């Protein structure tokens, strides 16, 4: 399935969260967003932000030195 990509490499937290947040604000519910980050903090911060704002994290993983978070956009109320 295709993903919207948020490239947050070389950004330190909370910038990856801000990039994901701003991208999600423009997307319809159900869209998949793949965030690629180099700050390991993204693995805790993006899921925390998703939990409180009603979006679902489908996967988190580490690829070499990159931290990947896949999010399904919830209803933007």
């Amino acid at each position, binding site marked *: 399935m295709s993903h919207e990509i948020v490239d947050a490499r070389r950004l330190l*937290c*909370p910038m990856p969260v*801000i990039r994901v947040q701003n991208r999600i604000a423009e997307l319809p519910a159900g869209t998949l967003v793949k965030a690629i980050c180099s700050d*390991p903090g993204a693995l805790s911060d993006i899921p925390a932000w998703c939990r*409180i*704002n009603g979006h679902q994290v489908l996967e988190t993983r580490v690829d070499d030195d990159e931290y990947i978070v896949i999010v399904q956009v919830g209803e933007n109320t």
Partner: protein
Amino acid sequence: MSQNRKAVALISGGLDSLLAAKVIQDQGIHVEGINFYTGFCVEGHTHAIRKKDRNKPKRNNALWSAEQLGMKLHIVDIIDEYKDVVYNPRHGYGANMNPCLDCKIFMVQKALEWMQAHDFDFIITGEVIGQRPKSQRKDTMPVISNESGADDLLLRPLCARNLPETRPEKEGWVNREQLFDFSGRTRKPQMALAASLGFEDYAQPAGGCCFLTDAAYSIKLQDLWKSRGEKRYELDDIMLLKVGRHMRPREHFKVIIAREEGEGKFLRGYRKQFVCLDTVSHAGPLALIDGEVTRQDIELAAQLVARYSQGRSAESVELEVSDHGAEAYRIQVAPMPAHEIPQGWHV
């Protein structure tokens, strides 16, 4: 109390803003949090960079606070707009380069814009009279309300009963009797309230909420401005001020030397923007040169870097030089003896 009223809470990640939001939530108000990112915030950065810290569990305290409260949190990037607050604070700086009063006015003003755009009714902060000597005093509270434009739509639930009534109280949106009258530097009332509300494990940051309250950081920022002949910074500049050993052997250039592997890796990410020095004959740090430099300057910087390598006692150390990402070349230098490095070079 009205079920329909909505408040936006400034959330720093500290205990006071958490409590203020909770107290208002408990009055049946819908509260959402807003957290501003200036680039100077302490959250996470050195943690992300330093290798020894990378494996420790980490959390963003503003997100943690919001999760405790079951409320939404909006994180807003104000990096560019905030520069003017740092360059020209109308109310001056605090003990270091922290423009706390102007910063608060600016953040409340931004919260007001957000409140109006999202059809919310009022703003809350965790401010407490007398908690901070410069920005949280009885006489600065009205300055923040007035100069931000929020006026009586700014409510401080933790010290509201020491202040004139605000519109949310006058209109009966919130019950003033259930707000607090905290004052002074003591943290005991907040800790007691936290305990009564069942909060544990909250953040207790020492000092301020940003790097501008840090003396060593402030000196580096002033050094940067002095070398540029003007107050100016980009996000990369203020990130790099958090990393490595900064040494200025000449007015026109500075050397940033990694202190450990994680910092080296972080600095390496900037090698296309700077002259980058990497020790190759011995184990040693990676370094960047900030400024326009000649071959002679690069050699001097390399001697300094060699001093911090395992080859510090060797006759010569080899380093690889790459100039803004151009093809690298190697140079040999004699490490500079520690006693020959003037104290004044350390920024």
